[in-house]
């Protein structure tokens, strides 16, 4: 067969056509490769770089990462971190995450092993930071950073930063904004925290998810309450500085402090609820149900009139949810120069137990009347449950309250009264609220 036969020529032509096509295609691919980030070489694992290991894996890098992952788990599981040098395990995680940068478990588990278990939180957070760079759309890694920063390192500002990143992730769960808002509130960043809770509440409203709606509103009101209390705490500090050794006889005494008199910005919960309700109705949706807001300060007619006057129909219909959130937040801020209004149905009261030896529950100088009653109810319930357990265990009623707690009973009554215990019936009552009904009932002499 001659080499230059027509058939060979056809093969030659097809060959060059094919190669021409593949070369053109490859040219495009090469441009793409040049645009992507270079895999940086660095010290990683047993003297070999992760980059080299990755090249040696010939495209089976995920299997290599899995083997290293198993080895790291076993290596940690075998002896833990306390009996060993933490560095080899850290480098294993570092190499592992170089080879497989998308392995979320390696970052979170690595942080747990190196940080929580090994006590090297900084290096644990290094892994977290690397994970955040490699997995920008996932919430889990920054969430772990938030957890470690707040609950292990006690660095609330850093925790808030991680939390803020986690909340922006595509797969962030609905509870995460509430957790981040909690950190904001705990850090005293009330503007930010209340705004976060408001966003979560509005999200529940827009998506009609009852659990987000209920929880979001509950946390929102609680945050406003804490904000109010922080203002009054500041006023109390000022009062104590101005009157050394004295305490206010009543909460109204604080109104004379500069903190309150000179004016301060705060959220009015009634106005906020009235605004949300009005906007909902303008959007032809159901307003806030009476059941949803029954435990909070209900907006008055004046609040609804005000809400109607500040929201226009066209604005509400044209605006996005985030813009509405900003609008609601800004309009709900008021400047006050008297004591803040409680977001709950009951008013703020001075806690008479504040100055007494604080071995028991209420330690806040100012509290909400409803919350104080709630505290009293839960304490009475707890005592009576303990008496019930004692009766079951000993087949008799305790002679006094000291007997059920094994030590001298010193828990103060939240209203400044006394605990009244009847050892014949086994019932504990409060001297200030003797008729208070407990949700789960009281023990009787016949019980048990």
């Amino acid at each position, binding site marked *: *067969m001659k080499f230059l036969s027509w058939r060979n020529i056809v093969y030659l032509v097809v*060959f060059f056509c094919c190669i021409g096509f*593949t070369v053109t295609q*490859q040219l495009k691919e090469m441009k793409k490769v040049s645009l992507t980030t270079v895999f940086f070489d660095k010290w990683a694992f047993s003297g070999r770089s992760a980059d080299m290991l990755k090249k040696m894996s010939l495209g089976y890098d995920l299997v290599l990462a*899995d083997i290293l992952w*198993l080895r790291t*788990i076993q290596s940690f599981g075998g002896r833990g971190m306390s009996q060993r040098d933490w560095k080899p395990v850290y480098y294993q995680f570092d190499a592992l995450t170089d080879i497989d940068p998308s*392995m979320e478990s390696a970052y979170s588990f690595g942080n747990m092993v190196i940080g929580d278990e090994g006590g090297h939180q900084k290096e644990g957070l290094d892994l977290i930071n690397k994970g955040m760079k490699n997995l920008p759309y996932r919430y889990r890694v920054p969430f772990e950073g938030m957890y470690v920063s707040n609950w292990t390192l006690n660095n609330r500002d850093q925790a808030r930063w991680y939390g803020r990143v986690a909340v922006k992730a595509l797969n962030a769960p609905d509870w995460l904004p509430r957790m981040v808002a909690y950190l904001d509130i705990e850090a005293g960043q009330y503007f930010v925290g209340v705004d976060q809770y408001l966003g979560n509440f509005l999200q529940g409203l827009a998506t009609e998810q009852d659990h987000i709606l209920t929880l979001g509103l509950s946390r929102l009101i609680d945050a406003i309450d804490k904000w109010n209390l922080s203002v009054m705490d500041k006023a109390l500090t000022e009062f104590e500085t101005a009157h050394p050794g004295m305490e206010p006889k009543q909460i109204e005494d604080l109104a004379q402090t500069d903190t309150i008199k000179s004016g301060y910005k705060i959220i009015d919960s009634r106005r906020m609820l009235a605004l949300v309700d009005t906007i909902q109705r303008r959007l032809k949706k159901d307003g806030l149900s009476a059941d949803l807001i029954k435990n909070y300060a209900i907006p008055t007619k004046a609040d609804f009139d005000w809400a109607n006057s500040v929201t226009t129909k066209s604005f509400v219909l044209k605006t996005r949810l985030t813009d509405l959130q900003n609008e609601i937040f800004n309009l709900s801020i008021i400047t006050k120069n008297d004591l803040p209004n409680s977001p709950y149905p009951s008013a703020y009261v001075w806690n008479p137990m504040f100055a007494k030896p604080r071995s028991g529950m209420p330690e806040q100088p100012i509290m909400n009347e409803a919350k104080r009653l709630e505290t009293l109810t839960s304490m009475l319930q707890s005592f009576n449950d303990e008496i019930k357990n004692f009766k079951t265990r000993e087949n008799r009623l305790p002679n006094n309250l000291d007997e059920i707690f094994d030590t001298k009973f010193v828990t103060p009554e939240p209203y400044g009264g006394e605990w009244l215990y009847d050892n014949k019936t086994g019932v504990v009552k409060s001297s200030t609220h003797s008729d208070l009904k407990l949700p789960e009932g009281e023990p009787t002499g016949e019980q048990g």
Partner: protein
Amino acid sequence: MNKVLAVALNTFREAVRNKILYFLLLFSMLIIGFSTFLSDLSINEAQNKLIKDIGLSSIDFIGFLIAVLVGINLIYNEIERRTIYTIVSKPIDRPQFIWGKYIGLLITVYVNVLIMSIVFFSVLYFRDSTAPDAIQKHFQDAGETVTSSSFAYYWFHVKALFISAGKGIATIFGYSEQITHHLMRVVGMSMISLAVITAFAILYSTFATPTLSAVYTFLTFIIGTMCNDIVRYADTIAKNANGVENLVGVAYLKYKLVWLGALLVPNLELFNKRRDAVYGMWDVMENPIPNVPIDGVTIAYGIVYAIGVMCLACLVFNRRNFK
């Protein structure tokens, strides 16, 4: 075409008699089966990832080994046993013979890949259906209380095994569940990669001994998987000289040669979709299932590249002197 098919079927029959094929198949099934035990050593969501990684990589690599170890001997044996004389003396062209050999080998490789895939999918389904939560739900729905030593418990596992095998077979025909979502796409892309590698195995076996052919094919595989690194190497040369325009002399020549090499070698990394199978972008946020995107151009690149290499193999074989 009939002649090509006749050679292809004959090649397939010949290849399936090769004992090494069964050893490789058995080995791959052991690896895939073993991966489920291995994954128990892992934690959290990394368990399923581990099975997928090992399973898909085994299918790809064992497929490659089959293509190399079976392919390198196909042409050589014909020449060595002098059976090539009886073939070329018949009314069949040399290119038809080469194409027949290639298609026969490809069928062999693909049949094995599909068998391995069925085992792999079955393992995934079985593991999914016998997870503690799934078992608990099954017996709760049935209103039964069972212990791990009761007959119903074993019977459930036996049934799950057969159902998983059935689903495994159905998966290669398009059926999928959350756990096997788009995995057949990954296998499909591996099959295209194997078509390119098989073409190279045939090309080398037209002019080299089996050992050399195996070495050449393996080197081609290595170069193909490191194609992106060649591009990066070329970029490094240019970067060291502060840009391509500043390259002169040997450095310029080196840059051009490396660039040309990167253009010509098969970019096998394009067909590696195993990362997408575990980390691919999700279809739905509420139900995150990795998505494996494939594009027609990549498929065309593989097919056209394989055809190109086969044309070269035909050219070389046409010039081969059997004296």
